[in-house]
């Protein structure tokens, strides 16, 4: 008996499907297929660009299809909105430097999530607007749940992404910001948010519960990201990637749109997997990434080694001699190299060493830079062929064993021996490069401070480690000059 009206509803829906609806659905289907093919193209570097261009075409299909929707009455605001959005997005994308990619992605997430949240609010409001006959459509518990989910994840992603952006852009301190009772506050917030969520499902008309969820989620986004150090931000960005996807999917559930569900699910899965991979590369359990990082206020580990140890230094002249006669050099770049914009100078150095008969490889750690694959992008930008990149930690360590010179440029935690030797180190267990197995290690470092994670690095005090203090670009520039001077001198 209950099934009957439902079937009628379905039957009505199918007979009512006009040609226009068919075209819309077809455009969504094409868009979904192009999205999936686009992501698949990313498994092969040579096809990736074309594949993603096709995915962009898919987006165009989806937009055009949507414009045919019979619920749309005025086009004016849509057109203005599209134009304004494109006018903001275009210069943003063309001007952003590759080094700023992580915060750019975080920023862009905030936009996407903001859209999802606003759509959720509009949909919620629309359900209570009386139609021509004065009847109110209302919401079923299921749709209310979808809308609640949408604004919860959407709003959380908006503020969370903006916080991540602020930390990566160093508008906010990269150090974890903690206060007493932080966990209790967060747990209470989560509990109240879920309480409101439950309330909304039972009583879809309780607008208070709905807007309370929006407010709480906005607040949660801030309070969850605050206690996380800048070094962990990539995991947060990736996780927010996943949340933004879930918010988009929830939108799809709420308005009955498959392309939203599919695109959201793809993104949700992608963000989830990348978070997993990153936490593995940083030797953290997944639970630790999701909850641990948000709760545990890391003890200041940098302060503990108060003993004054001095690292040995080397002059660029002496370092240049060693580089000029090395037959194998492994460069281990970190985010510091990118910050100093040294990638082009590094390429020049590589070409110079190559000319002298030495081989140069780059060891790229999975978490080097500020997100996975970030340094690959930066080195590619400088025109370094990706055949010269060692992206596997074990491979790189094998090459390092026979290298004459290992050169660490602006990297710190990924070459910290504590990760293998000191059980009390927060880095313990993280797979790292072992530059000290090479004959000589040069470390180019801006100053004597600790790295992004605030952990002391014993590598700098090893017998075969020689420090070159200074701005990476300047130091490498003088190395190049000295190597060239060698030729002229002989």
């Amino acid at each position, binding site marked *: 008996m209950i099934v009957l009206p439902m079937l009628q509803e379905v039957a009505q829906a199918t007979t009512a499907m006009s040609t226009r609806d068919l075209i819309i659905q077809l455009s969504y289907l094409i868009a979904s297929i192009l999205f999936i093919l686009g992501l698949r193209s*990313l*498994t092969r570097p040579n096809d*990736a*660009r074309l594949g993603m261009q096709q*995915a*962009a075409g898919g*987006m165009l299909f989806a937009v055009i299809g*949507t*414009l045919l929707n019979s*619920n*749309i009455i005025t086009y004016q*605001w*849509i057109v203005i909105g*599209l134009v*304004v*959005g494109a006018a*903001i*997005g275009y210069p943003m*994308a*063309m001007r952003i430097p590759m080094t700023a*990619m992580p915060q750019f*992605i975080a920023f*862009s*997430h905030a*936009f*996407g999530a903001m*859209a999802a949240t*606003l*759509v959720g609010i*509009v949909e919620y*409001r*629309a359900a209570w607007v009386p139609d021509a006959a004065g009847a109110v459509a209302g919401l079923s518990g299921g749709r209310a749940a979808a809308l609640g989910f949408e604004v919860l994840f959407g709003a959380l992603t908006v503020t969370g992404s903006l916080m991540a952006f602020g930390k990566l852009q160093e508008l906010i301190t990269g150090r974890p910001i903690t206060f007493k009772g932080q966990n209790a506050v967060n747990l209470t917030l989560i509990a109240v948010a879920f309480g409101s969520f439950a309330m909304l499902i039972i009583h879809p008309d309780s607008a208070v519960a709905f807007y309370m969820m929006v407010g709480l989620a906005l607040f949660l986004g801030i309070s969850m990201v605050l206690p996380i150090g800048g070094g962990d931000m990539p995991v947060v960005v990736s996780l927010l*990637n996943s949340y*933004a996807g879930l918010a*988009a*999917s929830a*939108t799809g*559930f709420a308005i009955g*749109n498959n*392309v939203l*569900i*599919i*695109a*959201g*699910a*793809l993104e949700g*899965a*992608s*963000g989830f997997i*990348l978070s997993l*991979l990153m936490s593995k590369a940083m030797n953290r359990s997944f639970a630790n990434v999701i909850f641990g990082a948000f709760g545990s206020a890391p003890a200041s580990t940098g302060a503990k080694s108060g003993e004054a140890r001095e690292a040995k230094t080397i002059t660029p002249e002496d370092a240049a001699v060693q580089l000029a006669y090395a037959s194998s050099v492994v460069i281990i770049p970190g985010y510091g190299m990118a910050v100093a914009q040294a990638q082009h100078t590094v*390429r020049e150095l590589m070409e110079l060493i190559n000319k002298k008969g030495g081989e140069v490889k780059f060891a790229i750690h*999975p978490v080097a830079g500020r*997100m996975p*694959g970030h340094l*690959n992008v930066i080195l*590619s*930008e400088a025109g370094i062929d*990706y*055949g010269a990149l060692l992206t596997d930690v074990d491979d790189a360590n094998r090459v390092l064993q026979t290298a004459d010179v290992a050169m660490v440029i602006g990297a710190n935690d990924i070459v910290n021996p504590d990760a293998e030797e000191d059980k009390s180190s927060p880095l313990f267990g993280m797979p790292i490069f072992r530059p000290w197995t090479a004959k000589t290690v040069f470390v180019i470092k801006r100053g004597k401070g600790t790295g992004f994670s605030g952990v002391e690095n014993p590598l700098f005090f090893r017998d075969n480690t020689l420090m070159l203090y200074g701005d990476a670009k300047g130091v490498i520039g003088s190395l190049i000059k000295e190597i060239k001077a060698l030729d002229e001198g002989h």
Partner: protein
Amino acid sequence: MIQIFQLYVFILAGFIGFIIIQRVPPLLHTPLMSATNAISGISLVGAIVAAGGQYGRLSTVLGFLAVVCAATNVVAGFLITDRMLAMFKGKPGAPGAKK
């Protein structure tokens, strides 16, 4: 009933995502993140309906803002992905870098 179908679609799409994304090499993880970010701009579809529908002035304003945000996300996301991928053209191991 319709919600069940939606759940089917969601779960199957999620599976496809898992299978494909696990095969993306670490080399392309940053472009992958920016690509999925661009695709999440699909909220634009919802935003367009919200901005064009007749649900009262406030809803239209919110819908308009949603279109602006989503369009920014889409345009910036796809362009930056393209900019990045354009740099990955060289064949692995091929000597002599471009530029």
